């Protein structure tokens, strides 16, 4: 679940040719646990949450040949086996500073822009009950100035050179990025190093108070004032037991936000916001040798922070069906089914991702075709694997159409899951999903900066695997899947009798 610092402001004409924002996004739209409130200026979607991004971009696996057209014996294709897609290489260099900051550099001269992308390896999972919402509140405070940067100057300095910036907090990490024209590269390096090294010097209770209110409004906008918004919070609480780092929402509980003190914030910074607990990517129109010197220059006076032990928490195990009903000011009910699944990059993670595609990744996908297209009893259905470091969660979300019930749609979902337990999908069916996955890896290569751009992906791969160039390995996980993997995955990881079921019902009196 990702929370952003701000909307993306677009000084250029806001998508004049964009279609109406009211249409439900196709298929994988109603992703419950990842509200995206940034970027709304580009595609205002009335609170429709974005899917948890899947990290990775294709570079072609050196160890394997792509598997096109499915295994021998499959029926004749309507379209010939899709032509192979060439490899995309992501070249980079990396080094570590004496203070522990790991740095990755990547050249791309398509446009004269540079993206500076910093990941702190801390998220809401490091919070304690009673002090939830800290990591995200802290992310906000990171923009309010540091010892050599006056309040407000962070943004004015960047905008004055044509730069964009944002940040986001998740359970396991917090990221910050600045996109600037390449002639302005020293400015984000100055800003990032100053707030890494000198934030506390300028923090004050007044600043904490101001951003506390902003964050509370962010919460209202993303949860309390958004249809079905509170379901996201309930799902985390039902999936992960009290005390588990994923139990509480990244945005935090209102009462904890109210209770946060200046001293709490300072302690959080000292514990987790050091260069030894962070990684930096500088990507774009750069000269790597010169850029290395600039990074060394600006971060040379940032002192190493406290050592941070890795978080090790066993994944919870669901032992039964847990069911809950909420009411909301909505016209239509909504059904959420959820399971605990293998963590990011662990065995089973890619198979679950592909299972989501088999279930809801297109008009011909199992659930979409039956619920939305054939029977027309659902307005939308989505399925996705939300991969995270300690444990993942798999969701199926269905909104019945007027005149239809949660029971009706749940029956169909359970029938389709049972079909996949009983028999693997067709080879071509799986290949279709893998081809879409592979294409999405390419699409993500187009942009260097911003959320999900190449810089962010390099940082994600490094943080999660130690290898920034994990692109090949990531894609290989999908290419290696066989239909029997999907069947085994549904049998093992999506049982009918051990899961979370959440229903949101229209409040009484609402027609």
């Amino acid at each position: 679940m990702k929370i952003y610092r701000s909307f993306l402001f677009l000084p250029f004409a806001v998508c004049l040719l964009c279609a109406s924002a009211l249409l439900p996004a196709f298929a994988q739209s109603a992703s419950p646990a990842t509200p995206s409130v940034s970027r709304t200026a580009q595609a205002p979607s009335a609170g429709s949450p974005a899917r948890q991004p899947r990290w990775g971009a294709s570079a072609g696996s050196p160890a394997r040949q792509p598997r096109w057209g499915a295994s021998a014996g499959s029926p004749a294709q309507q379209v010939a086996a899709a032509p192979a897609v060439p490899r995309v290489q992501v070249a980079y260099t990396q080094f570590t500073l004496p203070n522990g900051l790991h740095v990755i550099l990547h050249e791309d001269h398509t446009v004269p822009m540079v993206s500076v992308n910093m990941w702190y390896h801390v998220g809401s999972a490091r919070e304690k009950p009673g002090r939830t919402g800290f990591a995200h509140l802290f992310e906000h405070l990171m923009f309010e100035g540091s010892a050599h940067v006056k309040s407000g100057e962070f943004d004015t300095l960047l905008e004055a050179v044509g730069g964009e910036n944002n940040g986001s907090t998740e359970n396991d990490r917090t990221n910050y990025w600045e996109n600037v024209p390449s002639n302005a590269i020293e400015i984000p390096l100055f800003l990032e190093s100053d707030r890494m090294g000198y934030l506390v010097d300028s923090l004050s209770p007044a600043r904490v108070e101001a951003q506390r209110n902003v964050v509370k409004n962010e919460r209202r906008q993303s949860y309390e004032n958004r249809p079905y918004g509170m379901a996201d919070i309930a799902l985390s609480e039902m999936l992960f037991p009290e005390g588990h780092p994923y139990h509480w929402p990244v945005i935090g509980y209102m009462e904890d936000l109210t209770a946060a003190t200046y001293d709490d914030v300072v302690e959080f910074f000292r514990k987790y916001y050091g260069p030894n607990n962070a990684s930096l990517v500088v990507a774009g129109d750069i000269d790597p040798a010169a850029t290395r010197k600039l990074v060394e220059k600006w971060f040379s006076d940032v002192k190493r922070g406290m050592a941070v032990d890795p978080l090790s928490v066993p994944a919870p195990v669901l032992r039964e069906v847990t069911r809950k009903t909420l009411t909301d000011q909505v016209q239509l009910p909504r059904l959420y089914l959820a399971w605990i699944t293998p963590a990011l990059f662990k065995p089973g993670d890619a198979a679950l991702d592909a299972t989501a595609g088999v279930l809801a990744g297109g008009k011909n996908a199992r659930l979409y075709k039956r619920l939305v297209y054939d029977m027309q009893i659902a307005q939308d259905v989505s399925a996705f694997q939300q991969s995270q470091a300690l444990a993942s969660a798999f969701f199926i979300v269905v909104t019945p159409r007027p005149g239809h019930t949660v029971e009706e749609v749940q029956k169909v979902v359970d029938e389709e899951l049972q079909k996949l337990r009983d028999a693997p999908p067709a080879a071509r069916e799986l290949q279709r999903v893998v081809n879409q996955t592979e294409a999405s890896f390419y699409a993500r290569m187009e942009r260097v900066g911003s959320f999900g751009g190449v810089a962010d992906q390099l940082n994600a791969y490094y943080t999660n695997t130690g290898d920034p160039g994990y692109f090949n390995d990531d894609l290989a996980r999908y290419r290696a899947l066989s239909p029997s993997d999907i069947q085994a995955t549904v049998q093992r990881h999506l049982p009918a009798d051990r899961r979370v079921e959440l229903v949101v019902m229209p409040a009484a009196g609402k027609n």
Partner: protein
Amino acid sequence: MRRRSLLAILLLALVTWPLAAQQAPDRATPPKAGPPPALHPPATQKRALSNGLPVWIVELHKVPAVQVTLSIAAGASADPAGKFGVASLTAAMLDEGAGTRSSLEIADALDYLGASLTSSSSFDASTIGLWVPTSRLRDALPIVSDIALRPTFPRDELERMRKERLTSLLQARDDPRAIAELAFPRLLFGPKYRYGTSAIGTPETVAAFTPDDLRAFYAAHYQPANSTLIVVGDVTPDGVLPLLEPAFGKWKPASPAAPAAPAPAPAQRTTREVFIIDKPGAPQSQIRIGWIGVARSTPDYFPLEVLNTILGGSFTSRLNQNLREQHGYTYGASSAFVMRAAAGPFVASAGVQTDKTADALREFFNEFEGILKPIPADELAREKNYVALGFPAEFETTRSISGNLAEMFIYHLPPDYFASYIPRIQAVTSADVARVARQYIQPGRFAVVVVGDRKAIEPGIRALNLGPVSVLSVEEAIGPASGR
């Protein structure tokens, strides 16, 4: 001996000097940026197919993918009276049956290729967009050709899409932000003028569409004379034109519809008025304030870009700094001139916590008054730089380049538009901004729409004495929930 020692010392110095050079950087003043790089907008190679259909090609070889966009200069603004939403539904139905392929077959074929297809309408354009790995363009184009040139508009798919749209319109009534987005233009333009209703229409109009309605709109407006093909990505003209010709070159020009007489623009607002739309229990109020703005063809385009950036078009803008950073009322406040072929709204927006609604409204109007005063030189320079120096980022991806080229086509922008953009922004003066502020920001004539908890907010709003206050139900504001 001495020479060797000296040499040894020099060598030692050379080796240790880089290690010793990492002194703390000077943080006393922020570093400066070097001279901005010149913008080199990507070269657009203009060709045409044998039927005269223009093809604009931009080569971008970083990623082995290509975006093919067919841009048609007819959108929701061309909806006949009583049929608001037909352009949008026509575009959405193109891939629901085309040539000999069914809806499911089309989806299966494109999904299998890893291709991504969109077909939609805005007010001024209908757009079919294909993103696909280059190696699969040859396989994807025949399908897109069917979709663009031979849609079949099957009746049962129409019924399915109708239900989907009607339900979507129903669900919009749950969402305060969607209600505000629908109510503001309707209150500004009225239900008869096209801009008063969203592109997808109303429950009443959507309930009544027949396949013949869609075919009629398609026949009248989807013409090669009305369109341009935009191709951006890992292709060359010599490589891609032979693929485009069989797909689109046989598209016959038919007599286009006589352009409908443009509807008379509604009169600009003369007084300020407040509309409260009740959403009981809402923890935030959705605020929309403004009046009729300008068309895309306005001669004041560049000064207005700068004005709006200062007022509400950047994180450091007046509205955002006031309402979010200074007061903490909101997660974000912004403003925009929605420029279409005719004048769309000027609208300032924010979602603010309920108990600060009246305070937030007061601050909105403080900023509207404030923008009429001379802008400090450093702020003007900064916001001009934000727009001008960030412009090159518009040309990074196949989709953003395609979108920019489509804008050039639809709004008849001159061929040097991109090359001249930065200098024209930088040429905007303080006097220009003052002039357009006086002309286009007249807060005494704005409509104020607030979607929120009436019981909690009404007294405070009335106490502001902004103007006459009406309280509307959702139905009064955006029309009935059902057309049947």
